[in-house]
């Protein structure tokens, strides 16, 4: 199965998305097709043996939409110096075209530029430049359009086109409306010229209206081409509704014009050109505002994309060479001066500095960096000069990964969107049916054709599938984008939706509630050995350990300058400790469980153990040759924000539990410090997931917050797994939400964001459904039936345009979302 995402153009409403989804989904070999109207992307999973990407694109194009090629081949423009004639250009062109990986190269002598389409997997820009320089010309610094710019340019062009179309339709639509409403606007200071008086010169009046309508129709021609095409293919969409509604108005008006020409002057009352013209103008206005608002919903990702610097100073042969970011390769040594951005991910080789990583993590405090520390693309070097080695470039940098994660999340659909999807699939045909029924019913009831036609047009025009389609994805886009801004990466719409239902949160202790860097606090030896010997044996055994408790013992030994002994045998016992042989001494280092299982008597140090545990310290037992030799107590520091975050969660009505492999007493001591009542202690790593499952079996929606590899199964088992950013890659991959910072206040913030987003989605859906449920009957004349007013199609069009804009505006309100602050919030 192959998974591909295609950028789709030409969609105007949820019905379009449904249609593409349906058509692509029906193709033989397509397992799954999903279209997101907000991101304008089709995600398709297909069997390459049965169907090709080209077949899918063809199917999309066939039903009237476009597939924007996001070419695998990149395009680059290299300015060239030294060309004197057309022959030079031809020569360079020939050489470039011969390069493996170049699909097309053309050189323009006038602009002195080479435009090259190339496969970055096969050839690098530096090689292209070299090939130009090799034949005697100078390859200057490249001009490259990034994907961001292309997307931005495309969106800006779309907005400009829509505004231009709206302007044209407004220029002609306004006098059209003024002319048509002449008898109603007598109080305005601009009288309608006598020569255009409807009663005295009805034919001229009608013909001038036709003239004014034509440019408006041309501006809105897309509604007709797409709308009728969709109608013919029996998949009507929003365009179809507008096309049918306005066409009905125009055709009837043309008939009225004919009537006027033949002497029936009363037919002047049957002119509805202004209805069609103003409907198109208002819809174009709505679409323009919608395009602007839609652009704003993805501002967060654009902001992220804009963070990366364009160049890097690479040290080549001892010289500083300013190199375009795309030409930086792994292993390059990069110099970063104070105030500059880190161009790619890497490891510091030389120098000390502090780096502001707030744009990636949301953490406002700059972080000290020295040799061996990692640095990340887009973070800002504050005060020192550093040289670092590039480790991850291009799409592999943390920034690129975050962008991808956010993009994927924004493209994903929340379960709540399914209802809107189902409704919008049937929406347009049902609206058409209602319009026809209402038209026929009023006609049969004895109303005039003009009256019934007004009803017909109003029903078609007021129905708004766009609002339905935009309700969910726009809120998700803004919500996930806002999360990313604050270092909360939500991996998809489903995660965002589920997070708001969470009523129980289980925190891993070490590294999550605590700093995860425990220190040795107490060493108690039995009469058989000394404290130094105990520490030497334990530290030697734990040398190389990745367990935070083991690391603490090793650090202590290093600090006390204790010599490490060679380890003959080593075995890790997950959740218990280690079993080693050092200097021929069989040694067990681990928790109480390990000792109990190996029948080691703890009696001698029982009281000491209880005391340490009561103080929240973790006693690590050391047994040599099956005899208890002592206890090394290790204590971890509780994070500053933990207690506040937990209090906040409890205030939100969420039950908080702590899970740990530590002994019960230590766990309870830590829990007490941070205000947690429910403690799941002495839980083996493999059992963490079971504990989560147990809570779920109690009917709870459980979130697990953790950072280690051992937390991964529990993160997967939980309804929402939240990984702390300082944790392991495995944890982050297993989680639904990743917190870039280690600040636990981001947990209530993530849930608060989820609640706000879901509330926003519900408001949007409520508005979209409510609008259609109320609007369609009013347009169908239900109020008129009970003596109320009849809805003018122009007001119907205005309401329709406003509905989409209001949904988008409501979604944009999420941009004002404020995270909880660990310091003063």
């Amino acid at each position, binding site marked *: 199965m192959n998974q591909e995402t295609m950028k789709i153009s030409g969609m105007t409403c949820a019905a379009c998305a449904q249609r593409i989804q349906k058509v692509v989904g029906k193709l033989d070999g397509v397992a799954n097709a999903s279209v997101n109207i907000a991101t304008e992307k089709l995600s398709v999973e297909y069997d390459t043996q049965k169907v090709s990407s080209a077949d899918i694109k063809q199917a999309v194009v066939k039903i009237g939409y476009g597939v924007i090629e996001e070419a695998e081949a990149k395009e680059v423009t290299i300015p060239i110096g030294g060309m004197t004639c057309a022959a030079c250009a031809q020569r360079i062109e020939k050489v470039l075209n011969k390069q493996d990986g170049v699909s097309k190269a053309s050189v323009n002598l006038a602009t002195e530029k080479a435009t090259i389409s190339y496969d970055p997997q096969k050839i690098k820009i530096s090689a292209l430049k070299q090939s130009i320089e090799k034949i005697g010309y100078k390859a200057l610094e490249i001009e490259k359009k990034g994907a961001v710019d292309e997307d931005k340019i495309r969106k800006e062009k779309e907005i400009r086109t829509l505004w231009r179309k709206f302007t044209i339709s407004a220029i002609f639509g306004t006098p059209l409306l003024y002319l048509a409403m002449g008898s109603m606007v*007598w109080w305005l200071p601009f009288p309608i010229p006598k020569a*255009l008086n409807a*009663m*005295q*010169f009805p034919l*001229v009046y009608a013909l*001038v209206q036709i*003239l004014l309508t034509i440019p408006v129709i041309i501006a809105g021609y897309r509604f007709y081409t797409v709308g009728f095409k969709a109608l013919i293919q029996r998949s009507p969409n929003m365009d179809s509704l507008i096309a049918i509604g306005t066409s009905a108005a125009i055709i009837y008006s043309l008939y009225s014009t004919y009537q006027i*020409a033949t002497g029936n*002057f009363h037919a002047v009352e049957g002119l509805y050109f202004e209805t069609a013209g103003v409907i198109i103008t208002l819809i174009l206005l709505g679409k323009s505002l919608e395009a602007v608002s839609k652009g704003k919903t993805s501002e967060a990702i654009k902001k992220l994309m804009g963070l990366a610097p364009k160049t890097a100073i690479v040290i080549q042969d001892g010289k500083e060479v300013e190199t375009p970011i795309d030409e930086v390769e792994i292993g390059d040594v990069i110099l970063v001066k104070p105030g500059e951005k880190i161009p790619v991910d890497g490891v510091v080789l030389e120098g000390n500095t502090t780096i502001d990583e707030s744009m990636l993590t949301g953490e406002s405090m700059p972080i000290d960096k020295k040799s061996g520390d990692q640095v990340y693309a887009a973070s800002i070097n504050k005060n020192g000069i550093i040289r670092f080695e590039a480790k991850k470039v291009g799409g592999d940098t943390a920034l690129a990964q975050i962008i991808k994660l956010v993009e994927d999340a924004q493209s994903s659909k929340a379960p709540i969107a399914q209802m809107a999807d189902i409704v919008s699939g049937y929406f347009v045909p049902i609206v058409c049916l209602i319009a026809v029924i209402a038209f026929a019913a009023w006609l049969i009831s004895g109303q005039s054709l003009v009256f019934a036609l007004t009803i017909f047009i109003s029903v078609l025009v007021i129905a708004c599938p766009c609002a339905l389609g935009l309700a969910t994805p726009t809120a998700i886009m803004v919500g996930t984008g806002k999360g990313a801004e604050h270092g909360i990466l939500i991996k998809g719409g489903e995660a965002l939706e589920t997070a708001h239902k969470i009523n129980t949160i289980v925190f891993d202790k070490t590294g999550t509630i605590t700093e995860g860097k425990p220190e040795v606090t107490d060493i108690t030896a039995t009469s058989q050995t000394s404290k130094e010997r105990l520490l030497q044996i334990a530290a030697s055994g734990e040398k190389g350990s990745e367990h935070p408790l083991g690391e603490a013992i090793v650090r202590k030994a290093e600090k006390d300058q204790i010599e490490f002994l060679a380890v003959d045998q080593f075995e890790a016992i997950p959740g218990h400790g280690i079993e080693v042989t050092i200097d021929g001494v069989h040694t067990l280092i681990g928790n109480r469980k390990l000792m109990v299982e190996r029948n080691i008597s703890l009696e001698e140090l029982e009281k000491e153990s209880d005391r340490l545990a009561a103080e929240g310290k973790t006693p690590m037992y050391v047994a040599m040759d099956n005899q208890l030799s002592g206890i090394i107590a290790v204590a971890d520091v509780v994070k500053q924000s933990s207690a506040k975050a937990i209090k906040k969660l409890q205030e939100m009505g969420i039950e908080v539990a702590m899970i740990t492999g530590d002994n019960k007493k230590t766990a309870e001591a830590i829990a007490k410090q941070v205000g947690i009542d429910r403690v799941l202690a002495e839980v083996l790593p493999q059992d963490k997931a079971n504990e989560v499952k147990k809570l779920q079996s109690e009917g709870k929606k459980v979130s697990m917050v953790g950072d280690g590899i051992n937390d991964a199964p529990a993160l997967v088992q939980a309804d929402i797994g939240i990984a702390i950013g300082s944790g392991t890659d495995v944890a982050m991959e297993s989680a639904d939400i990743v917190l870039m910072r280690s600040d636990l206040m981001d947990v209530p913030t993530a849930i608060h964001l989820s609640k706000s987003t879901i509330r926003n989605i519900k408001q949007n859906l409520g508005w979209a459904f409510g609008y259609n449920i109320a609007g369609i009957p009013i347009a169908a004349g239900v109020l008129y039936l009970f003596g109320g007013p009849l809805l003018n199609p122009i007001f119907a069009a205005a309401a329709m345009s406003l509905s989409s804009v209001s949904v988008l505006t409501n979604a944009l309100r999420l941009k004002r979302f404020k995270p909880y602050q660990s310091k003063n919030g």
Partner: protein
Amino acid sequence: MKKIVLGIMAMATVVTLTSCRQLDVVGKTSASSFKQILDAVPSQVAADESENGWSLTAPDGSAKFIWSKDFNKSPIYDVMLEVDLKPFTNAGADVNKLPGGMVKDNKIVVGTSLGNESLSYDGEVTPIKSYEKIVEMKRDSVKYHAALDHFGVDLENGNMFEWAKDMGHNDKDIVFVLNPKVFIDAGVDPNKVEGWVFAKVETMDAKGKPIKVDKLLKPFNIK
């Protein structure tokens, strides 16, 4: 630039349309329907030598609509109504209080001068050709009254002569219309003017605002 050209073209087209006589369906139809009226009562249509025009007399002889053959030669008005004075004096009119020149030989005369142009005709001068000259040269004086489906000649000061666009579908084939104000000012009780109906008529003011005005009407079904 494109937009300016487009705008100029649109304006030019609108001007062309508004000045195209072929598109004046009201003017053209008013002439054909007026001809139908004249053809329906040929005995009541005559040349009015004293006014150098043509007259259409009401079936009861109590009123006349007179229109000029040549605007340059009309002694008083180019279009006018001539109605019996007696019903007005019977209803209380003080003749001395009526505007000067309005009463002439026991007749009330209201009308307007359309211009001073000399009219030239192709062929014989006929009543309908003279009317067509009004349509052609003084189109603003020809009105369409949608509420009654009537055409009319505006005699100014609220006075009109109207006729049915389609006699077959109208019971008021011709209507003499007077503004009652001057008569009321002269002491007339408008409800007591014999042979005239005092009524409110729906019309539009100069700005196009729909209004209802008082009128004295003398309608005839001439079929």
